């Protein structure tokens, strides 16, 4: 029960910020895919950079554990490409579709129904996927600091600097 309330509160805070950042809209999502408006990239990458530093601090202080997903090239690459096609057609992603609907963009409802159908189809196809795509290129639970054999703060510093350079490029180009 406590977890459900944590989930609800976290969602309310996150949904509020998604709307304030104006990233829920079709025009913003398509804008990024067309390389014309990088608002959603700025939002996502800012969130990732801040989250990365904070969560690794928690891990170092032994206050949290990472939840590393398996690097599975078959699933990651093919799934990513399929996701991109669908995302470009819909113009909302799974999390933001709920927020887009809340903002009054009711075409997101078609997307939500479609996503439920997609999930149902995947559940049917899972046994086949498990024997095929999900066996290709399994690298296990790897991380960049792990395979490079260097301290994670070196990787974090490089990613933060690269992110800030990308931001300054966006601002220069008025994207």
């Amino acid at each position: 029960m406590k977890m459900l309330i944590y989930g609800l509160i976290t969602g309310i805070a996150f949904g509020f910020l998604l709307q304030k950042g104006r990233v829920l809209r079709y025009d913003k999502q398509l804008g990024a895919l067309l390389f014309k408006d990088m608002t959603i990239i700025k939002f996502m990458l800012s969130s990732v950079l801040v989250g990365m530093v904070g969560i690794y601090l928690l891990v170092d202080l032994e206050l949290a554990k990472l939840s590393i997903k398996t690097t599975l090239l078959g699933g990651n690459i093919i799934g990513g490409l399929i996701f991109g096609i669908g995302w470009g057609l819909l113009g909302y992603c799974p999390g933001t579709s709920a927020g887009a609907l809340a903002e009054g963009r009711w075409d997101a409802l078609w997307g939500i129904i479609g996503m439920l159908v997609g999930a149902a189809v995947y559940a049917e196809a899972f046994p086949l996927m498990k024997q095929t795509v999900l066996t290709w290129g399994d690298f296990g639970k790897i991380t960049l600091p792990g395979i490079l054999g260097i301290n994670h703060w070196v990787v974090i510093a490089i990613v933060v600097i690269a992110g800030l350079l990308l931001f300054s490029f966006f601002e220069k180009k008025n994207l």
Partner: protein
Amino acid sequence: MADLSTNDGGWSPYLAGGLSGIVSILSVWIAGHFLGASTTFVRTVGLLEDFISPERVAQMEYFIKTTPKIDWQWMFVVGIFIGALIAALSSKSFKWQGLPDLWQKRFGSKSQGKRAVFAFTGGAIAMYGARLADG
């Protein structure tokens, strides 16, 4: 430095994004949960199918792995709806719109049917890909 607000009353995506990073840190710290949304669609459709045919759902490998139930992430997605609603209503940026501006510019203002087909198909394809990539 970029402005901290946009011309339509929104916040800078750097500010809103950075704050959402803090939300994710607090979530991992306090609840031990990383943010995500797509598993919720699996659980929801599992709950719907369970309503129709519980015997079948109980045998399906994917629903054994991802149990149809209301969990932290399910409430997180509900929360996104509520939070976005609060932000939109309190800033008067709520807009009842079935055809996005950019879409209308390309396909015209009478393309509701086409939008429904594109959005539905796109949603189904996107979710299949997201699950395959374990995203």
